[in-house]
């Protein structure tokens, strides 16, 4: 089992969720986060004054899936949330040791 952690643009969340749901991956959780990449946030200048945003708001989606589904989930998120501009985000795949359903106590996804 793997966790697919995707940090995406907030305006792309619906597209990503819909694309995932249409493939059968409807279980996920989402957290609002702020972040920065290599570019160190945004810098802009207005009338000789320099200003910037150190962090930019993003949404972090998390799906826990079977190993065999990881490639499909990653590809779906990549396709649905890409704009090609800086700030599109990143996807991380992490190993999950155990999954337990709170309602029933069952183990597994």
């Amino acid at each position, binding site marked *: 089992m793997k966790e697919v952690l*995707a940090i995406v643009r907030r305006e792309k969340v619906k597209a990503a969720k819909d694309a995932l749901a249409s493939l059968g991956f409807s279980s996920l959780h989402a957290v609002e986060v702020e972040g920065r990449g290599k570019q160190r946030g945004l810098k802009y200048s207005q009338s000789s004054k320099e200003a910037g945003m150190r962090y930019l708001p993003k949404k972090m989606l998390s799906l826990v899936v079977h190993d065999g589904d990881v490639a499909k989930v990653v590809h779906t998120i990549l396709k649905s949330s890409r704009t090609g501009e800086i700030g*599109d985000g990143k996807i*991380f795949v992490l*190993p999950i040791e155990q999954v337990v359903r709170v309602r029933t106590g069952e183990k597994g996804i």
Partner: protein
Amino acid sequence: MKMVRTIVRPEKVEEVVDALEKAGFVALTKLDVFGRGRQKGIQVGSAVYEDLAKTMLMLVVRDEDAEKVGKTVMQAARTGNYGDGKIFVSPVDDAYTIRTGEKGL
């Protein structure tokens, strides 16, 4: 690759981010969290705080950099009091850049 998750005092965040930037670790994700440690929160007079506001910083780095990240954060974030926070390191199998579709950090 390792994911380093650091839970620090909110008022220490900018200091920590500056220190990390200086050490060469620029990319990170920040989120506001609430938590408690072994002390089960704090009591100030008659007010009991079961959970306290903290900030979590998440960085994904190469295996060999995880320790340096941890040391940098600890130095910048430590006050010596209860509530300084914790650092967790977990494995990451893969990373992708959405803009390019490329694999890797």
